[in-house]
C-alpha cells in the first residue's frame, strides 16, 4: 500500500520559485550594491600595509576593552595570521562579518523591541525564532543562491538569517527584565512610550543587548565559514579548499586564523559590555 505523501518540499520550492521569478530583480540589485560595498571595505582594509592595520586594530581593542592583555593578544594573534599568509582572507572574513552583523543588528534590535513591547508580536516571533535556530545552517545556503547569486552577498544573506535570533531574543529579554517598578516610575512621571523606551528600557537593557550582539557576531563568524560552500571567500574559503584538496596543514592554519578572530571579537565585546554592567547594577 502506498502512503499519501504530503508535498512539504514541493510547496516550499513553489513558493521560493515564485518569489525568485517575481522579486529576484530586486534582490539581485541589492546584491550588486552590497557586493560593491564589501569590495570597497576589503580594499580599504588591504590598502595600507598589514602592520599599520594590525597596530590600528590592537589600539582599538585596547581602547575598547581597557585591558592590555586583550590588546597584546590582538597584536600577537594578528601578527601570526599575517605570518601564515592569511592576511587577505582574514580581511575578507572581517568585512563579511562586519556587514552581516550590522544588518543583523539593524533588523534584530527593532524586532526584539517589538517582541518585548507587544504580546502579539512576541507570540508570532518566538516560534519563528525556534525554527530558525533549529534548522540546520546549510539549508539557508540553498535559497541564497537564486536570490543573491554565488559569492559574498548570498553568504551574507544566509549569515544574517542564521545569526539574527540571539540579537532578537536578548533584546526582548533585556527589555522585559527591566524591573516593573522602574516602568511604574517612568509612567508615573508622565513619560511617553518613546521616552520610556529610549530613556529607561533600552539603557537598562544595554548589557543584555550587547551580550546578544556578541552572540550574533560569534554565530556570524561560524556561518561565514560554512558559507564558503556558496563561494564566499575569506578564511572559510581557505578551509573549504583545504578540505577538497586534503591539505591538512593549510586547513589547520586557516582554522587557527578563525579562532584568533573569534577570540579577539568576543573578548573585546565582553569587556565592553562588562563596563556597562558596573554602572547598571544596583546595590
Amino acid at each position: 500500500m502506498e502512503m499519501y505523501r504530503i508535498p512539504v518540499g514541493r510547496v516550499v520550492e513553489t513558493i521560493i520559485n515564485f518569489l525568485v521569478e517575481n522579486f529576484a530583480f530586486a534582490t539581485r540589485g541589492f546584491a550588486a550594491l552590497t557586493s560593491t560595498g564589501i569590495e570597497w571595505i576589503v580594499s580599504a582594509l588591504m590598502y595600507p600595509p598589514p602592520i599599520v592595520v594590525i597596530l590600528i586594530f590592537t589600539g582599538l581593542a585596547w581602547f575598547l576593552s581597557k585591558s592590555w592583555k586583550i590588546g597584546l593578544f590582538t597584536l600577537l594573534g594578528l601578527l601570526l595570521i599575517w605570518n601564515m599568509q592569511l592576511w587577505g582572507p582574514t580581511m575578507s572574513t572581517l568585512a563579511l562579518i562586519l556587514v552581516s552583523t550590522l544588518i543583523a543588528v539593524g533588523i534584530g534590535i527593532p524586532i526584539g523591541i517589538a517582541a518585548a513591547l507587544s504580546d502579539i508580536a512576541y507570540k508570532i516571533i518566538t516560534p519563528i525564532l525556534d525554527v530558525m535556530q533549529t534548522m540546520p545552517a546549510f539549508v539557508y545556503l540553498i535559497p541564497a543562491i537564486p536570490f543573491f547569486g554565488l559569492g559574498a552577498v548570498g553568504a551574507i544573506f544566509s549569515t544574517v538569517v542564521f545569526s539574527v535570533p540571539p540579537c532578537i531574543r536578548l533584546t526582548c529579554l533585556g527589555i522585559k527584565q527591566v524591573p516593573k517598578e522602574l516602568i511604574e516610575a517612568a509612567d508615573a512621571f508622565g513619560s511617553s512610550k518613546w521616552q520610556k523606551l529610549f530613556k529607561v528600557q533600552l539603557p537598562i537593557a544595554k548589557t543584555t543587548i550587547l551580550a546578544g550582539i556578541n552572540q550574533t557576531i560569534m554565530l556570524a563568524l561560524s556561518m561565514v565559514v560554512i558559507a564558503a560552500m556558496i563561494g564566499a571567500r575569506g578564511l572559510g574559503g581557505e578551509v573549504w579548499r583545504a578540505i577538497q584538496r586534503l591539505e591538512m596543514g593549510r586547513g589547520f592554519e586557516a582554522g587557527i586564523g578563525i579562532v584568533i578572530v573569534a577570540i579577539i571579537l568576543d573578548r573585546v565585546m565582553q569587556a565592553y559590555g562588562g563596563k556597562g554592567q558596573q554602572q547598571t547594577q544596583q546595590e
Partner: protein
Amino acid sequence: MEKIVVEDVYKVFGPSPKQAIEMLKKGHSKAEILEKTKNTVGVAEASFSVKEGEILVVMGLSGSGKSTLVRCLNRLIDPTAGKILVDGIDITGLDAEKLRRFRLDHLSMVFQNFALFPHRTVMDNVAYGLEIKQVAVAKRRERAMEAIVQVGLKGNEDSYPSQLSGGMQQRVGLARALALDADIMLMDEAFSALDPLIRSDMQDELLQLQEKVQKTIVFISHDLDEALKIGDRIVLMKDGYIVQTGTAEEILTNPANEYVAKFVQDVDMAKVITAESVMLKPKEMAYYETDGPKSALRKMKHSHISGIFVRKDKKLMGYVSADDAAEAIKRGDNTLEKVVKTDIETVNFDTPAVEIIPLLARLPYPIPVVDEGNRLRGVVIKGSLLAGLAERGTE
C-alpha cells in the same frame, strides 16, 4: 478645600470585573466571588477625600488593597468603576495623552524600593520628570539642584544610585518627586525599606519639608506608628474595604468596629508589633576571625551579658555562652571554633511578636534579628518585648 475626591472606586482583577462588582453589591463575599468567577477584588466601595496641603495616610496590612488604591489615583492601575476627581476633574475619563499631561503637571510619586534609574546619576534621576516635561537643560539642572539641596544630598549629585545607602537612595526618590513641582505627592511605603532609625529621621524630615512645600500627600503605610506620626488623617483599610477614616485621635479613641479596635489596642498588639520595633541594639559582638574565648568572655563581662553572638565574614555565625567560653579557656582553645553554636534560630525585621514569644520561652539565648544578608541587626530579649507590648497597650 478638597484636592482629591474618591467616589465609590472599585478595582477588580480578573476576566469579568463588572460581574464581580454586581455580586459584591448583592452581598457576596470576596472568597465566593474568587471561587465562582476567578475575579480578585482589590479595592471595593472606596470613598474618601484628601484636603489640599494635608498628609493622608492610607494604612492597612499587606493585601489590604492600599497599594492598589493609591495606584488608581494616578492610574498606574485603572479603576474598574467609580470616580476620582482631582481639582474637580474626573481623571478616570482622561485619554492616554491627557493622562500623561495630567501626571506631569499634578502628580509625582515615591516608591517603596526607591525605583531609581540605575544608569542615571543622582542629578539625572532627580531631573527625570523635568526632562520628560522638556524643560531647558540649564533650568532643569537648577531646579534639580534645589531639590537635591532640599533633601540634604548636596555633593552627591554625580554619584550613581548603587553608590548610595538605602536612606540616601530614598532621598533621591524624594528629590525626584519634589523637583517636578507637582501639587500632589503619592508615597507608596516610601520609608518601609529603611532601617528603623533612618526611617524615623526621614519621617521627621518629611514633616519639616511639608511645612515649607505644603503639598497634598497621600502616604501608604503598614506601620501604625508611622501613620500616627505623620498622618493628619488616616484611612484604615482591610481586605479591600475602607474600615475607618479619621484623625489618629478619632481612630484610637473611637474605633469604628471590632477590627479597628483590635488593630489599635493591645489585644492584638502581639500580631501588629514586629521584631524590628522591639529589638535592642546588640551590646557587643565577638568576631570569629579575631576573638578567642578569652576576649569573648571579657566582652561578655564588660557588657554584663551571659552570652555573645559571633560574627564571621560580616554575617551572623552563631552564639557562645559564657559557660562554654570558660570551658574553652580551661581547655586552652585559641579560637571559638569548638564552642560556637551555629544552629541558632533567627527572626526577620517583620516577624510578629506572637512568633517570637514561644522562641524566647524555649531558647536559652536572646533572639537575634537579621536582615536579608544574614547580618545581625538587633536582639530581642524578654524585657524589650514586654516593654514594647506594654507601651502600645497604654496608648
